[in-house]
């Protein structure tokens, strides 16, 4: 980054950079100030996570010390041992994973199928289906909460994996995303396959889906994260410990017990957050892309 007087046209706008040579000193101050602000912001944003990670290796006694310590004075893994021995965290981890994977798989298949039908096929009632699905984006979750609970209970699915999964295997946002993306695939490509005698299912599985890689990745990561973090539905539906997901388990041994076991809570929180952070870093390109797709265009 050399400081040139002419603005770099490829990089986005930097209004002060555009002004004439008299502002060079001003620009250096500007740059330092900008980075100081950004670093301060970053500390505020990820500080709590760092604190969580470090805290999970402290004792509750050390966490309550005034003034607080930054690094653990006497690092201990006792909290993690408790999570795995005294509490059944492997089981909760397993439940969270099963539910999130099933919800994601359902969304990928069903949303892309409907997305294909809406983008590339003609059938009676197509417009109605699209409008109905989109309209539900504005419906607050609490509206369906109670009827869903009654439904799942009457189906005998309360406190089962199916009860945690089924209400979320289809989602309006996924349809929107897949319809947008599949709409961008040229018709000529599909028509050529039709002329060669390919059926719509062959076209869908052999041509369309393989071209949808980025959109499917975006949908997969967003759905997985949403399901992994979802909290209220499993809190109500999972009534015995063997069905708890991670957020449910964490909430039940942390909420309303602020004074005890803070260090253990930090370790539990880290177990909930860490897989998300790893996934997030690995797939961040698809996350930001997805938001830009559904948001801007």
């Amino acid at each position, binding site marked *: 980054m050399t400081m040139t007087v002419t*603005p770099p046209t490829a*990089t*986005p*706008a*930097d*209004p002060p*950079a*555009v002004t004439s040579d008299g502002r060079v000193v001003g*620009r250096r101050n500007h*740059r330092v100030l*900008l980075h100081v*602000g*950004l670093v301060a912001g970053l500390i*505020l*944003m990820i500080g*709590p996570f760092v604190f*969580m990670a470090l*805290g999970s290796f402290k004792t509750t006694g050390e*966490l*309550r010390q*005034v003034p607080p310590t930054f690094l653990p004075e006497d690092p201990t893994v006792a909290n993690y041992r408790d999570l795995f021995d005294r509490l059944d965290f492997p089981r909760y981890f397993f439940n969270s994973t099963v539910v999130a994977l099933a919800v994601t798989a359902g969304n990928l298949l069903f*949303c892309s*199928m*409907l997305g294909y*039908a809406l983008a590339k*096929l*003609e*059938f009676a009632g197509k417009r109605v289906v699209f409008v109905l699905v989109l309209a*539900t984006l504005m419906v*607050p*979750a*609490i*509206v369906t909460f109670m*009827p869903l*609970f009654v439904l799942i209970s*009457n189906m005998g699915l309360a406190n089962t994996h199916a009860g945690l999964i089924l209400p979320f*295997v*289809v989602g*309006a946002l996924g349809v929107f995303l897949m319809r947008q993306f599949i709409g961008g695939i040229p018709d000529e490509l599909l028509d050529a396959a039709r002329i060669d005698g390919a059926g*719509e299912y062959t076209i869908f599985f052999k041509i369309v889906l393989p071209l949808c890689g980025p959109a499917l990745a975006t949908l997969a990561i967003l759905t997985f*994260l949403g399901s992994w*973090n979802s909290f*209220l539905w499993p809190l109500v539906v999972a009534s015995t410990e063997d069905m708890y997901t*991670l*957020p449910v388990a*964490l*909430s039940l041994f*942390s*909420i309303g017990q*602020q004074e005890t076991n803070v260090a253990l809570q*930090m370790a539990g*929180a*880290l177990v909930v*957050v860490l897989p*998300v952070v790893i996934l997030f870093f690995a797939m*961040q390109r698809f996350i*930001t892309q997805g*938001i830009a797709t559904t*948001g*801007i265009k």
Partner: protein
Amino acid sequence: MTAIIATESIAATPTAPPRRSRPSRKQNLVGWSFALPFFAMFVVFMAGPIVVSLITSLTDLRSTDIRSPFGVNFVGFDNYVDVFSDPKFRKAAVNTAIFVVVGVPLTMSLGLLAAVALNQGIVKFRRVFRLGFYLPVVTSIVAIAVVWRFLLGADSGLVNGLLDQVGIDGPAWLTDTKYALPSLIVMAAWKNLGFSMIVFLAALQSIPVDLYEAAAVDGAKSWQPFRYITLPLLRPTILFVSVITTIGYVQFFEEPLVMTQGGPLDATLSVTYHAYNQFSFGNYGYTAAVSYVMFVAIALVSFILFRLLRPNT
């Protein structure tokens, strides 16, 4: 159905291309075979419950009736009358309104500030900042609450510990009726500003640099390029972000559930929380009525935002 669509498309474009022929029987079969798996699930788990909720709001259904839901009585709009005359609901509505009116602009301005800062060509390690600022958006509220409850603790919390170092006696952030709701607003802004930032950043990057160059040639100073170029061009994005953020914030619930349980003295009770409590008590008719009031409120607020922020006429 098809007739309506056909007349609409003709009305919209007088010199329209030849009218699309009605889909053949085979086309319908193929199309629906793709649409049906989603649509069947959608009707059972989404559309159905929305309708059931509306009907329930007109009945006296309670949790004890769910094995025989057709034996309940229709009570007209009694539940809605009960909702609006319930002081708890009013308290919750005021709290929710404050949360939205303060929280949405705060979250969006912080997100925009971060986006504008990151959009400066001279920023190094942009990716690191972007990731860090977005991280809270994708993490579990329950996990975040563990840390925030500890940070905001009255006696041994980190925030008050730091304030103590400079001689300030910090308040009980989460257990004082004056500070509980503002604390949750700040926490929500912290958690959600990354979403606004990402969307604003994408929009900022699509603004052509020549506009700023032209403005500079014309002698635009300090805030003028931002005020007269950036903001007007961001208008559609601001609309989008404000609608999405508002729809989310009107449903504000998980933050008080994990941080304060609605307390102290209902200071952080929200409308959705109130509905959830009534659900737990088994008052299903009342719960449904509250949730439909929410539904209407969200539709109204979205409509107002669209009117306020639509392209200049």
